[in-house]
């Protein structure tokens, strides 16, 4: 574990990504202290340019953009992490069962997985949120529903290759139950690749969430980055700052997550681990 951490720390870009994410996390934690007021509250005159009384300016209704971004960060992280965890659990169960039992189970589960993969992810997510009515939980469900197939395919592949390995057979030869083989031997051995892919998935989930909110399918009572951009797009030419700052926030967050994900992949994946 420590060796893995040391390998991670040797990757400068991954460290930069981790620093960005740490800042984001601190921002989320201290948001209620820095901006005690509701971000939907009108804070001053509309369309104030940045640098004056308001660090990042105000939007068309006179709301403080800095406060909006701080609150939006929380939404993004909750949805990104929540949807990814849900996708990992769902994907690991489906992929694990398919890869372990093979045969009919595999055929059925993998056809279902492929069925989900054939639907364009964003449109499918739109559809689900539209049906469930926009809210944080329906966004999590929608994003998880379009993200789990990649995890399922990964876990299935790992299980198929692990299943042929002798240590799994040796364990079966000791008389171990399926649950013991799956949980004690196979899952720990594919955990590193799942963690690496899962971390990248968080970035995708945040992008999906911003897209949904931009189209007005986010929770209207919760501030999010997509919502700010959506509100500011009409005045993009006269008040550039409304769309720009949440855009930069999305860019930095997703970049940070991807850098950390790549770093984890390198540190944990034994195939890339050069001696």
């Amino acid at each position, binding site marked *: 574990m420590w060796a893995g951490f040391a390998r991670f720390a040797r990757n400068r870009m991954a460290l930069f990504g981790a620093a960005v994410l740490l800042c984001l996390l601190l921002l989320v934690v201290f948001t209620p202290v820095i901006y005690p007021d509701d971000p939907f509250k009108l804070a001053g005159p509309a369309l104030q340019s940045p640098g004056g009384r308001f660090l990042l300016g105000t939007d068309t209704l006179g709301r403080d953009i800095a406060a909006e971004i701080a609150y939006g960060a929380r939404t993004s992280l909750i949805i990104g992490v929540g949807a990814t965890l849900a996708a990992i659990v769902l994907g690991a169960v489906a992929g694990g069962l398919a890869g372990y039992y093979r045969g009919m189970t595999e055929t059925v589960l993998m056809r279902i997985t492929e069925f989900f993969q054939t639907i364009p992810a964003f449109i499918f997510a739109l559809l689900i949120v539209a049906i469930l009515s926009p809210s944080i939980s329906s966004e999590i469900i929608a994003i998880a529903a379009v993200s789990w197939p990649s995890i399922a395919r990964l876990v299935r592949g790992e299980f198929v290759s692990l299943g042929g*390995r*002798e*240590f799994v*057979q*040796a*364990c*079966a*030869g*000791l*008389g*171990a*139950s399926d649950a*013991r083989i799956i949980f*004690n*031997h196979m899952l*720990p*051995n594919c955990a590193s690749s799942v963690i690496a892919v899962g971390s990248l998935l968080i970035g995708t989930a945040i992008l999906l969430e911003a897209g949904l909110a931009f189209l007005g399918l986010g929770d209207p009572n919760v501030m999010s980055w997509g919502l700010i951009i959506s509100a500011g797009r009409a005045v993009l030419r006269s008040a550039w700052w409304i769309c720009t700052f949440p855009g930069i926030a999305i860019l930095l967050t997703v970049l940070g997550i991807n850098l950390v994900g790549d770093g984890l992949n390198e540190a944990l994946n034994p195939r890339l681990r050069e*001696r």
Partner: protein
Amino acid sequence: MSETVLELDKLTIALPPGADRANAVSDVDLALRAGKVTCLIGESGSGKSLVARSILGLLPRPHVRVGSGRILFEGQNLAVAPQDKMRAIRGAKIGMIFQEPMTALNPLHTIGRQLDEVLRIHTPLGKAARRARVLELIDGVHLPEPGRIVRSYPHQLSGGQRQRAMIAMALLLNPRLLIADEPTTALDVTTQAQILHLIRELQREHRTSVLFITHDFGVVADIADEVAVLQRGTLVERGTAAAVLGAPSHPYTKALIAAVPKLVPPAARPVNTRPFIVQARDVAKTYGARSMFGGRVTLALAGVTMELRRGETLGLVGESGSGKSTLARAITRLLPIDGGEILLDGADIARLSRRQLRPVRKRVQMVFQDPYASLDPRQRVIDIIAEGPIIHGTLPAKAREEAQALLGLVGLDPSAARRFPHEFSGGQRQRIGIARALALHPEVLIADEPGSVGASAGAGSSRRYQGTAASQHALRNA
């Protein structure tokens, strides 16, 4: 006395802190001479492979490095040579053959392309000249139909053919020194003899100096001009093959030579009239994908019948591909069989369900062929050994206690318990595998070529097992 090609001068290879000793090898002096085969022999974990890697500058840095001493080759000290200089020497002046030819060849490129690449990198030869040289070499290692071989992918060749291709690749540039790291260990006996003969023949032809790493005294007797014996990192004996094999002076060498199995029938034992423990009757197994389009079907077992009595050791002999491992897996019920029956103590176990099999698992245990693949890389040694008893209801604390005791029985240090499999050499891992199988006190022990990677040491500890627990039963597939 022929000239010296490479000289090791007080070579010491340092291990990272926390390893089982400070230096992998210390103060090794060795001279490799032109046209001679020097065998470096030692048990698994003695540091012999690291010596080979240090010469090529391929030590797993930064954890393992040359601590002190010199590696002299053509007036240069390779121990301190920069990487780009080493690259020019590797392949061109020092060739290397690895233990497992499948992993050393790129599965996506044809043999011809891989050989051609070596020439393209190291020589100014044109395309036609390179092709001629490749075909010449492939013919030189006695591969049939060179024209077909150059177009083949590694998986289309047998283990012996792949090793021949590797040898051809190592000799392409006429290196002055060839390092062979247990090149025949993964091969069956017949192929092994052919490969040894080939190395000997090519080495005489090209007057190459060969450093041959092995744990097998049978191989040494076949091929060596000179022998160096390595024990836990120290060179204990060195001399001509005749001198070392004929009149070993160091007690360790004597013990190693005494441990070589002799092909003489053991003294007649009283006829075993105890009841049968395992009986296989007409066991049949075919592999193959039955698909819509027919598919290819391989017959692995065609009605095999065999019997094993309690207290008996049965050796099952056959070339690779003869179905030995399939039979072993069929008896342990790791593979379903297509026909016949397998009786354990008179009861058919061939058709039991998984649940019904669990008590049977405890009675029949298997030691696997590949100690690298058969241990879970994420489990500590103690947990690997204790897992069987825990599955069968022993309290974890007690199971670990017993596992700790087993470590001693198979000749491992008690400190091994807290470590992970990758920290051990092949032979040590095989001991762990043996301890895992013994932890359940099985009535039948099936050993699937446990010695092929794990050196004579592994075989030694399974023999020791038979000595300490003579009431139990073993079926050795060796």
